[in-house]
């Protein structure tokens, strides 16, 4: 059965837990998985550049023993000749076994999934969804905290356009004992529909503040985000807000000793480099976890497709 992952909520909590368990197994014994995808091909269809996500998918497939083909920007694909996403998906289905697709337009991976005959993984569609980032975040939290429940997590920075924030909040809302602290300037607050449809609908306790330092002692996890230039229509707004929150050692003075600092990367200046060597900085471990969870996801989808 061909299955697509377009949104993290396409996966049940049990399926996410199974993926995390599989990723941990891969981490513990990578050799046992090094031939699992021998003869399989991943197509990375990146209609906009995203070096990290693409390399993560490609490294994941190579470590499973498979191969990779694809393109890294629309200009080097048939899209530049006007080919539709639907046709590209049909054509690539003849060459590959699984697709990882990034596209600047929201919903493009759904169009691909509707037309492909092989599994499609959304590797990010505009400001909409990026499920493998959320799975990466969940795996990192699990590995750092040993659980996916009973903690207080602060989201800081751009909570309005930050799709990773919306998606992680949505995913965590299915676990118990989660408290959420939303830290952002007024202009970049979490959209009211996320508060209404997720936090309020599921009774998740949350507070909103503009002051990071005042809430720092409460946090078990701090999820920092970048104010993304590409999400703004107006450059003036971007320039005004881009330096809203910069995390440095002084701001961490009152933080818990076992705080876990996450960031989906790339970082610009919102986390001072002096923090990189602090044991609480987990954002580079997150990158590594991203490869393992993508290995687990591709392996699972390919096994399901073969059944």
């Amino acid at each position, binding site marked *: 059965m061909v299955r697509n992952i377009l949104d993290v909520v396409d996966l049940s909590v049990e399926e996410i837990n199974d993926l995390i368990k599989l990723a941990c197994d891969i981490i513990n014994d990578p050799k046992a998985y090094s031939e699992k995808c021998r003869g399989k091909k991943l197509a990375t269809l990146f209609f906009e550049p995203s070096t990290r996500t693409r390399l993560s998918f490609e490294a994941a497939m190579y470590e499973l023993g498979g191969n990779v083909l694809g393109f890294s920007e629309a200009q080097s694909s048939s899209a530049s000749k006007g080919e539709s996403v639907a046709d590209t998906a049909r054509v690539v289905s003849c060459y590959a076994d699984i697709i990882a697709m990034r596209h600047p337009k929201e919903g493009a991976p759904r169009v691909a999934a509707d037309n492909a005959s092989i599994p499609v993984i959304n590797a990010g*569609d505009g400001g909409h969804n990026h499920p493998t980032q959320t799975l990466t975040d969940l795996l990192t939290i699990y590995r750092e905290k040993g659980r996916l429940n009973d903690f207080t997590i602060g989201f800081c920075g751009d909570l309005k356009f930050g799709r990773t924030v919306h998606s992680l909040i949505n995913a965590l809302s299915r676990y118990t004992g989660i408290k959420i602290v939303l830290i952002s300037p007024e202009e970049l607050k979490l959209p009211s529909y996320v508060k209404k449809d997720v936090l309020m609908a599921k009774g998740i306790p949350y507070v909103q503040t503009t002051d990071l330092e005042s809430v720092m002692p409460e946090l078990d996890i701090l999820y920092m985000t970048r104010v993304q230039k590409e999400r703004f229509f107006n450059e003036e707004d971007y320039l005004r807000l881009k330096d809203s929150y910069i995390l440095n050692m002084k701001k961490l003075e009152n933080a818990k000793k076992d705080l876990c600092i996450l960031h989906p990367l790339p970082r610009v200046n919102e986390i001072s480099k002096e923090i990189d060597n602090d044991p609480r900085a987990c954002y580079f471990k997150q990158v590594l976890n991203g490869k393992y969870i993508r290995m687990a996801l591709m392996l699972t989808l390919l096994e399901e497709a073969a059944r």
Partner: protein
Amino acid sequence: MKIDSIQNGIVIDHISAGRAMDLYELLGLKNVDCSVAMLMNVTSSKMGKKDIIKLDADIPVDLDAIGYVDPGATVNYIKNGVLDHKQSIRMPKMLKNVIKCKNPRCITTVEQELDQVFKLTDEEHKVYRCLYCETQAENK
């Protein structure tokens, strides 16, 4: 005010007062060949005030579009001057090519051949979201 009854055609009745213009636009009635009569703010024993649209021919009408604008409306098919049958209307679970996604970042803005599909995600509050980008449609 009196509008002559029709011999063969369609009467869309029990439209909430003030909504007939929305339906007129969504059903594309400005492009049809037959006569179209719109009655607005008609006194109704059941509704207080209502709108009615009469079409002087049995042309295909998009029942989903009617259900989207006003699920309380009824569609009456008239043959030889008498009521032939009545069609009750429901809020459709999916809307296809009735409304357009307004999100400039949606894939439907660049791939024009794609159907414009909206899914009913909250019946109580009548929330429709684009199937592709999940942007909420503005309520009609």
